[in-house]
């Protein structure tokens, strides 16, 4: 199959979550909506169900969710709820609501109230201090609760063996996505920003074994191509999500490729694997959560050192990018509060960046286009 045909398939899947859901339901499978961030999807897979990432939508407008949400909730959270209220995600058999940010914590209760009898809502509170014995025990306890509730929905208890197998499937999928990100940098002429985004987004709407098989096939084809001699500029993207094809088209129009990303919806979601040798697979998942690092949303005991800022700045240098584009979600406190530190690290290393204020209800990108084009000019001068 040609690379373009494969890329188109990912694009089709990424653009049609409802169709994907119907596809799995048609096969008699159960599906679980998984809200951001860091829910142990492995447990859903181990239960024989399909996890569905719920990261809002670029095509919808907040209407029914307003009944439940404060106006200052980010659009990701509100539009995820909108999709549960307007029938788009009616096929789901339940949802998991993690609570890692200050918006999601109260939002989890909005989901519970609004879903009522419609579907089970599984509450998941990750610990802030996730490293020591108590933190790990807390995560295991929370995950055990999720495991039990998922088992109930699936109609059978989830075995340790199934979780161990799920960990393997997920590690392989994460490795394939990390590999793809590297290949997309080497072949940025073929894997343009919109295509790169679609490939990574499709992962949220597919059973991971199926997705990985497709992605490995694409990776194999990409690896055969000669590394492209890119004449444009390259950036690293950062933020919670940047999957709007219209916005990403501005990168393409201005010959800006994406060399790597620090995006929650993309690389931050597959940077860290879970151990396949740990005797207790629940502990393996808890340790994986503890091992996550350099993340806006996670507690860093050494935050004064600005390790995260430096990590992202180094990513720009190491990936061969000339600058960074930060997609700042409106009303996202964690990202807003982190920004001065990221800015400092970038400034200290002389890396230019722009911050684009976005939300998922944006339909006019005039200002963003201007900023992206001007940034392309700046990067070109700095090359």
């Amino acid at each position, binding site marked *: 199959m040609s690379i373009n045909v494969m890329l188109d398939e990912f694009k089709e899947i990424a653009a049609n979550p409802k169709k994907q859901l119907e596809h799995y339901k048609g096969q008699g499978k159960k599906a679980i909506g998984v809200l951001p961030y860091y829910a142990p999807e492995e447990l859903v897979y181990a239960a024989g169900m399909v996890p569905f990432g719920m990261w809002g939508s670029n095509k919808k407008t907040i209407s029914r969710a307003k009944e439940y949400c404060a106006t200052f909730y980010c659009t990701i959270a509100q539009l995820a709820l909108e999709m549960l209220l307007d029938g788009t995600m009616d096929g789901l058999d339940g949802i998991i609501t993690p609570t890692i940010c200050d918006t999601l914590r109260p939002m989890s209760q909005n989901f519970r109230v609004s879903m009522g009898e419609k579907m089970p809502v599984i509450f998941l509170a990750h610990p802030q201090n996730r490293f020591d014995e108590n933190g790990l025990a807390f995560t295991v306890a929370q995950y055990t609760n999720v495991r039990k509730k998922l088992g109930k929905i699936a109609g059978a208890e989830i075995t340790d063996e199934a979780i161990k197998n799920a960990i393997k499937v997920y590690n392989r999928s994460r490795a394939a996505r990390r590999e793809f990100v590297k290949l997309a940098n080497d072949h940025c002429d073929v894997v343009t920003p919109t295509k790169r985004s679609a490939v990574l987004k499709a992962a949220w709407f597919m059973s991971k074994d199926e997705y990985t098989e497709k992605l490995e096939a694409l990776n194999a084809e990409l690896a055969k191509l000669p590394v492209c001699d890119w004449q444009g500029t390259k950036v690293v993207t950062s933020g919670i999500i940047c999957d709007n094809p219209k916005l990403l088209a501005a990168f393409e129009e201005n010959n800006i490729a994406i060399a790597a990303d620090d995006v929650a919806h993309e690389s931050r979601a597959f940077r860290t694997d879970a151990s396949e040798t740990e005797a207790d697979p629940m502990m393996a998942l808890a340790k994986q959560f503890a091992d996550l690092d350099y993340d806006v949303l996670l507690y860093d005991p050494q935050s004064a050192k600005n390790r995260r800022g430096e990590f992202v700045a180094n990513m720009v240098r190491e990936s061969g990018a000339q600058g960074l584009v930060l997609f700042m979600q409106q009303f996202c406190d964690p990202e807003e509060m982190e920004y001065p530190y990221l800015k400092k690290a970038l400034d200290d290393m002389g890396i230019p960046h722009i911050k684009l204020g976005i939300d998922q209800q944006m339909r006019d990108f005039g200002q963003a286009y201007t900023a992206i084009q001007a940034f392309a000019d*700046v990067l070109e001068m700095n090359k």
Partner: protein
Amino acid sequence: MSAIYTLGIDVGSTASKCIILKDGEEIVAKSLIDVGAGTSGPQRAIDTVLANADMTREEMDFVLATGYGRNSLMGLADKQMSELSCHARGASFLFPEVHTVIDIGGQDVKVLHIENGTMTNFQMNDKCAAGTGRFLDVMARVLEVKVEDLGRLGAMSQKTVGISSTCTVFAESEVISQLSMGTDKCDIINGIHRSVASRVTGLVHRIGMVPEVVMTGGVAQNTGVVKALEAELDCPIHTSPLTQYNGALGAALFAWQAACRKSR
């Protein structure tokens, strides 16, 4: 060698501006129409500038479009560029020592950092009209005065009145309540100018202010805003009678560069 003529077109959100340059040095003609993107303004501005120069489109060696509506001229222009680069270029032409450009346009605010005549960094306002030309338009309407009179009226202020700088809608209701309390219009206008200045100052400090500072865009004609900004930044600000044409001038200069490359 015959002279090179280039045309720069700046299609802004509220006005369309054109400049014809000879050999990248001499302004041959200019035009300004008070409506911008999506209107007949751009075409009328082009027709006017060509008529003023007594020339035709065919006599232009290179045409470059910039501004919010730059994409709408793709059939007519040879190239388009972001208005930020063009403003940087125009300001460096007018003030060779410039390092900071503050451009307040109809719907956005941009601050550019310039080294050796080229833009090396920039900041734009968030998606909010506070601090922009639109903000002043709204306030002028509420106060029942003309936008072009704001500077003169604000200068007559005797008293300090605080107007919020966070949001156009809130600021508008503040102005209305000041009016109903009988506050002098000149004092309110002065407060509005300081509100714009404080909003823009935040952006300037985000990229760091390096003199010399130049202000461009339509709002630079409002002496009240310029003075308030000078006070906030504690730094003199240069403006030019060509301030509104700055983007078009930069576009014509880039067009000249492109024309020279083409003819080589």
